């Protein structure tokens, strides 16, 4: 393996030996059903556009096409980005891995600036809509704390909208496939608005507007 290794094709110019990449699996992994796996590049062949990689999980080595490789961040696989805008690399496996890690950590919501992304799973994390959670966000809103310091959640989103009504009327659009949790989020948002109304009466100044 040459030390000064340069690839002629510019689209693969980011590929160098020993970096971590996402490898596209032609068939899903039988255990995890994933189609991307993290690996380390061992060897690159620019003339034949192939590479030899070693998977980080099981140390298995395979040959694959350069087009099956995607950039991977050096971020720890157990951590995740709450706001996708903070990601350093944007590609399909990076974004999907972020969602997967957040789901495993029982984080139901991920944000993308003013967009909130919700995961629907069979084992819905019941704590996400518990009275303690409601109280947490309600107190943050009523005490005029910086709501952005709270973790991404439907209730944080609703509080931000209520804050913005000082400037203009606000709209929330809930969209998704069948069974993705639209009705659930709709119901929880409306219930939260009715609950926060009690606390707002005591604490906040006059805020006219329509929401």
């Amino acid at each position, binding site marked *: 393996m040459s030390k000064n290794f340069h690839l002629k094709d510019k689209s693969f110019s980011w590929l160098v030996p020993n970096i971590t990449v996402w490898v596209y699996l032609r068939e899903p992994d039988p255990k995890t059903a994933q189609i991307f796996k993290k690996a380390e590049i061992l060897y690159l062949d620019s003339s034949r556009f192939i590479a030899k990689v070693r998977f980080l999980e099981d140390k298995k080595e395979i040959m694959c096409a350069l087009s099956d490789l995607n950039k991977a961040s050096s971020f720890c696989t157990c951590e995740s980005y709450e706001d996708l805008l903070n990601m350093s690399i944007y590609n399909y496996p990076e974004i999907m891995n972020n969602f997967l890690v957040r789901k495993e950590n029982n984080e139901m919501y991920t944000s993308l600036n003013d967009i909130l992304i919700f995961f629907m799973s069979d084992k819905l994390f019941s704590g996400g809509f518990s009275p303690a959670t409601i109280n947490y966000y309600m107190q943050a809103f009523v005490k005029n704390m910086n709501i952005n310091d709270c973790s991404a959640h439907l209730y944080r989103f609703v509080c931000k909208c209520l804050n913005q009504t000082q400037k203009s009327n606000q709209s929330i659009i809930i969209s998704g496939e*069948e*069974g993705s949790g*639209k*009705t659930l989020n*709709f*119901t929880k948002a*409306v*219930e939260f*608005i*009715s*609950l926060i*109304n009690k606390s*707002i*009466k005591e604490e*906040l100044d*006059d*805020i*006219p*507007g*329509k*929401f």
Partner: protein
Amino acid sequence: MNEELISSILFLIDLFTSTRTLECKNSTKASRSISIYYDKNVNLISMKFDIIFLDHSRLKNSNLREESNFLIFYFLLDFLSENLKKEIDLNDFEDYIWIKTELTPQWNSHKDYKRKFFNSLTLIGFEQNEILVLLKMLVSIILLEKFEKEKK
């Protein structure tokens, strides 16, 4: 506006606009829009609920053999007492082709749907005789399929 009233409205909307499909146990077959109004002191004055694009064709679409009709019809058949059923001329499942028995809703055994239904209607402003008229209207919708058959 209090939480109980809002919760009742949402419950009734779910009952009248949701069905059970192959993909989802509680699939909403309409679009919902809520406008929330509050005053200068941030007191919630009113909420306006709009239901649009309701899937009317599901009422009499016998081609949907593997999916259910709207939840309200199954509620009437599963939770009303026999006396009330007689009063509104509601019979058993076999008499209604549109109310499929192959995919009935999965009711949560912990919830008292019957009590919540009647409480919700009362909270909204329905009186007892008006609730009876509403139930009879719902039964007449189911009976429409019998008239269509006789017409043919």
